[in-house]
């Protein structure tokens, strides 16, 4: 590792994982932490507990803002453990000179999202720092959820499972990139930022046999699947053609040399479900507007344990790798 922190270490990929394991896990080591789940399961399996900090530029983007993101992000981590979001905290670090009106807009969109999740903010903290000490506003939220279904875990994916994705991939990452760089496309490219609890609630109500669930945030779908493949020691085979990608996202990827499966999502999740249930899961998900493009994308084998393989429509295959480094546009 380097002597100083660099941006690549926050990318959700290999460098990020290395930083976390060598510094944080090294010193904080304990059984719960080492499970590496989206949310920690505590209190004898009754509660899920998680935290996340949010910094995004621009603060207001197509399809959401930092406020909506800060509630969705944390609540989704709880939902992914089969837990219903309940109590949350909200800590804000805001830069001197920030517009009060903007702050209020952000808080109002937090409130709206809390309602969707049925959660409430029960304590909080506000710090104002001198100009230049932070980039406009940083928000941290912590959430506690009540586990509705136990045993969801990224280390128990097996050959009995089928892999499902809830919607088109890469939309948040592509939107932020386009907004940040001032790229204007004629199309309606929007972040997928959304709360997933209502979808999960329905799946649980239908008694779906869910093995693992994870929202594909930083590092995208590739990061989730690679983690599952490693933690469960299986090979996940993805049919490239079945990955739902919108034309807009595909176009941005073409221009900049990205892969849609490496781009961040904020309201799209991957599921490993017992194969018999897969079709039903897709049908349930598709009944929600935010999961219209849900699809079966792959299966689990032992061809290359610990790896994710992409199968092309013309019969070739390749690794679906974790992103490394900062996402940079390719030059030629």
């Amino acid at each position: 590792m380097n002597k100083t922190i660099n941006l690549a270490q926050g990318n959700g990929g290999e460098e990020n994982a290395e930083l976390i394991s060598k510094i944080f896990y090294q010193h904080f080591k304990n059984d719960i932490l080492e499970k590496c789940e989206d949310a920690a399961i505590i209190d004898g399996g009754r509660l899920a507990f998680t935290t996340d900090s949010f910094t995004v530029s621009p603060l207001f983007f197509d399809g959401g803002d930092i406020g909506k993101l800060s509630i969705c992000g944390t609540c989704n981590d709880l939902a992914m453990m089969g837990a219903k979001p309940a109590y949350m905290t909200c800590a804000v670090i805001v830069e001197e000179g920030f517009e009060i009106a903007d702050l209020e807009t952000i808080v109002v969109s937090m409130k709206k999202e809390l309602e969707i999740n049925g959660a409430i903010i029960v304590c909080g903290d506000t710090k104002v720092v001198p100009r230049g000490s932070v980039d406009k506003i940083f928000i941290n939220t912590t959430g506690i959820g009540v586990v509705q279904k136990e045993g969801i875990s990224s280390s128990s994916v097996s050959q009995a499972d089928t892999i499902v994705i809830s919607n088109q991939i890469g939309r948040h990452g592509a939107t932020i990139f386009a907004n940040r760089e001032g790229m204007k496309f004629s199309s309606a490219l929007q972040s997928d930022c959304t709360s997933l609890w209502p979808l999960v609630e329905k799946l649980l109500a239908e008694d779906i046999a869910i093995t693992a669930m994870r929202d594909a945030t930083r590092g995208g779908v590739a990061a989730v699947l690679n983690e599952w493949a490693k933690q469960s020691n299986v090979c996940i085979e993805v049919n490239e053609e079945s990955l739902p990608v919108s034309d807009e996202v595909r176009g941005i990827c073409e221009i900049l040399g990205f892969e849609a499966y490496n781009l961040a999502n904020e309201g799209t999740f991957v599921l490993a479900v017992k194969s018999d249930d897969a079709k039903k899961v897709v049908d349930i998900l598709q009944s929600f507007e935010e999961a219209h493009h849900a699809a079966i994308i792959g299966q689990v084998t032992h061809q290359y344990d610990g790896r994710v393989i992409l199968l092309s429509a013309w019969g070739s295959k390749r690794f679906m790798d974790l992103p490394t480094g900062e996402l940079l546009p390719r030059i030629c």
Partner: protein
Amino acid sequence: MSCLELKDLYDGFRDPKVIKSFQKLIALEATKLLKPINIMEVCGGHTHTIMKYGLTQLLPNNINFIHGPGCPVCIMPKERIDHAYTLAMQDDVILLTLGDMIKVPGSHGSLQDARSRGADVRYLYSPMDALKVAEENPDKKIIFFAIGFETTTPMTAALMDSVIKRNIKNIFFHINHVTVPEAMELLVEGRDDTHCIDAFIGPAHVSVISGAKIYEIFPKKYHIPVVVSGFEPVDVMESIYMIVKQFNEGRSDLEVQYKRLVSYEGNLKAQGLIHHYFEKVDLFKWRGIGRIPNSALRLRDEFAALNAEVIYKNILSYEEINNHKLCICGDILRGLAKPHDCTVFGTACKPTSPLGSCMISSEGACAAYYKYGNLL
């Protein structure tokens, strides 16, 4: 970029049916080959396409690929990266460059590292964006660390044109542009009987600017077929088919598969602009390959006032730095070895900690093998 239909960029060029039908055609032609053939794809973009779409898995085993030197980031020697690093660390400098370049390690680290140590390093999509940075930072010196083959050179020249015409005083240039055909010729000259390059797939984007004419020498002087190809899997498959057919028909011609954009003459205006500002020299050692006569461009003396190498000559070192001892990039680029033959491939050398040039950019051969696995 108002009403561009982004789909148009790739639609049709990844059609599984078309790819499969080329696979059949190639297989059929290949049975008639008298000996196995080695095709070098010169450009890193093609290496990327071949590995990403698993095209080698679709070919009979008497067709072999040699992955060429055409990745501008990969061939940048450490001395030049150290220049960029040194310039970036100057207090009043903003260093601008393109994409992947900021990841490449020099002797003190990469530009990314420089940035985490306080330097102002930014990457651009288009060199023209430098004008905006210069305008917003009148008290800073903006240095554009220019890299790339014939594809990006005209953009650097166009930026230079604007800087001069608008009399902008705070943009300077560190030029690292290189040219493709000279490197190809060196590799051809260096081949022996067991390791020959039998055909080239020529880079498309370079040829849009320079025209297909720059490859004429290979069929004429060396009897090596060249097919200038686009970057989509259908393009590459069709080009392979065209090459195999040339062999079976006993021809060695210069052909253009990428007719969508490439002409024989290329873009004469861009060529004129390049010639106005640059001259061909042997400026530095290509990483992994070494010195290649006339393979780089240098800013002409009349424009010395814009040349960061001249302005900062007291702090820039020209001492050559050797490549890592275990790295066999040179052999890989000559077709003598494959990434798997390197003892540190995937262990000591990975994209996150590259030891050699082929692992640095995602378009380098080692990086493409690591990333996509070269599964069979």
